[in-house]
């Protein structure tokens, strides 16, 4: 039986980032992945590295996300050095563009509320003129009132990030095993055995980071993964001359010039089909923000399934009954990739999660709901 120090179950951005971080610390690690039919949120992602709206009600999430935005520049540079693959990461701040006074006021309230919980955001609310100064080449729609701006925000190409992480695993001599989904996991005598179609794999530590696949595997390890799928649909235009120098929530121009327009939120279950209704809504709002987009051609639309916890914040935990089993769940795999590769992988390599990750334990969902 193949034996490793650690096995990461899940080869999406979350699992691959943790696996890469472990491999960098010279942990002998294998990353198990599914095949092409995986429900892979990593391949549907919008690509924001995003702080400004994270952590309402959970300041620890704000701090954790800010930490990742601080780590991202070196993380991206290191991946490029190790693999030759540039993730197109840029950190010029990010915008949430508002239509009408009510939206802008609501952003202002959110920025204040978040700042009062954790002083990590440095978000400014910009009026229309200040927004226009940041995006001089973009003609703003008549209803645009302004935007919130967070200097720590940025964006990256999620497909290139996933490719770079997989390549980096190989460059660190870690095993990346595709077509090897975990079917069952047994814990005996301080060691884990993972059954896969590629044969059994043994390890002293196991990290469950399998996105939606984590729900079925968690209970046997004494872990808790109360997650549900939330569909997000995205549109993408033909390549356009660059007019949007920094990303906005729901509107970003990629390095190649295509414009991504997103994203919707609905709950059809495990369904990644796209709908004309959602496309129309996305296009309509984009054109109200930037009327010239009405002349752009759409070339694709797709949908992905966010891995959503009850409060939308990540779950990190170590099993009490199977020591050495860890769980990592989030819907912000791109944003948190850097902190997962550095801090989370470091903690797992050391064998215990730090106190600052205690707020992410899923025990928070067990509190009595009595009114």
């Amino acid at each position, binding site marked *: 039986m193949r034996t490793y120090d650690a096995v990461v179950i899940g080869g999406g951005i979350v699992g691959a980032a943790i696996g890469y971080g472990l491999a960098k610390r010279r942990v002998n690690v294998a990353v198990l992945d599914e095949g092409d039919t995986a429900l892979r949120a990593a391949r549907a992602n919008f690509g924001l590295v995003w702080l400004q709206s994270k952590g309402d009600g959970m300041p620890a999430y704000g701090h954790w996300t800010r930490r990742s935005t601080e780590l991202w520049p070196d993380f991206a540079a290191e991946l490029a050095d190790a693999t030759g693959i540039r993730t197109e990461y840029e950190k010029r701040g990010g915008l949430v563009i508002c239509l009408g006074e009510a939206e802008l006021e609501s952003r202002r309230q959110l920025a204040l509320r978040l700042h009062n919980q954790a002083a990590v955001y440095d978000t400014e609310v910009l009026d229309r003129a200040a927004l226009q100064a940041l995006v001089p080449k973009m003609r703003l729609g008549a209803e645009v009132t302004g935007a919130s701006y967070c200097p720590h925000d940025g964006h990256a190409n999620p497909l290139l990030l996933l490719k770079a992480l997989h390549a980096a695993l190989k460059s660190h001599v870690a095993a990346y095993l595709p077509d090897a989904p975990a079917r069952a996991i047994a814990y005996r005598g301080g060691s884990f055995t993972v059954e896969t179609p590629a044969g059994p794999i043994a390890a002293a530590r196991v990290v469950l980071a399998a996105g939606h696949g984590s729900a079925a595997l968690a209970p046997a390890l004494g872990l808790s993964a109360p997650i549900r799928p939330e569909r997000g649909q995205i549109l993408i235009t*033909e390549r*356009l001359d660059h*007019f949007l120098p920094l990303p906005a929530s729901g509107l970003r121009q990629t390095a190649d010039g295509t414009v991504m327009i997103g994203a919707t939120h609905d709950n059809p279950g495990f369904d990644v089909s796209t709908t004309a209704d959602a496309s129309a809504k996305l296009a309509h709002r984009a054109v109200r923000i930037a009327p010239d*987009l009405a002349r752009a051609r759409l070339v694709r639309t797709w949908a992905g399934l966010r891995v959503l916890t009850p409060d939308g914040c990540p779950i990190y935990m170590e099993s009490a009954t199977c020591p050495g089993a860890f769980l990592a769940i989030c819907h912000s795999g791109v944003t948190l990739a850097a902190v997962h590769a550095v801090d989370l992988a470091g903690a797992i390599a050391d064998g215990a999660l730090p106190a600052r990750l205690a707020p992410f334990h899923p025990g928070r969902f067990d509190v009595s709901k009595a009114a």
Partner: protein
Amino acid sequence: MFRRLPEDARALVTVEVEGRTVAVPAGSSAAAAALIAKLGYTRTSPATGEKRAGYCFMGVCFDCLMVIDGEPSQQACLVTVREGMRIERQLGARRLG
């Protein structure tokens, strides 16, 4: 490299390909007009700057994008010529403004 079939006896339509007047058989596509005009490349890639030209001529490859009568990103192989049509190379990414 490309020649019209000798039996082609259709009426001719006059179009402008990169400013040059060219007579092409009625019913031709704008991409065929570019071939008849021996234009060579018909666009440059917005990603790499590479010179490109039509490849599939049946609406699939999107390599024949041209500016037709001032409208960018037209699939030239799917547009039928009209008298006086202006057919131009599309250089780089199109501008919206």
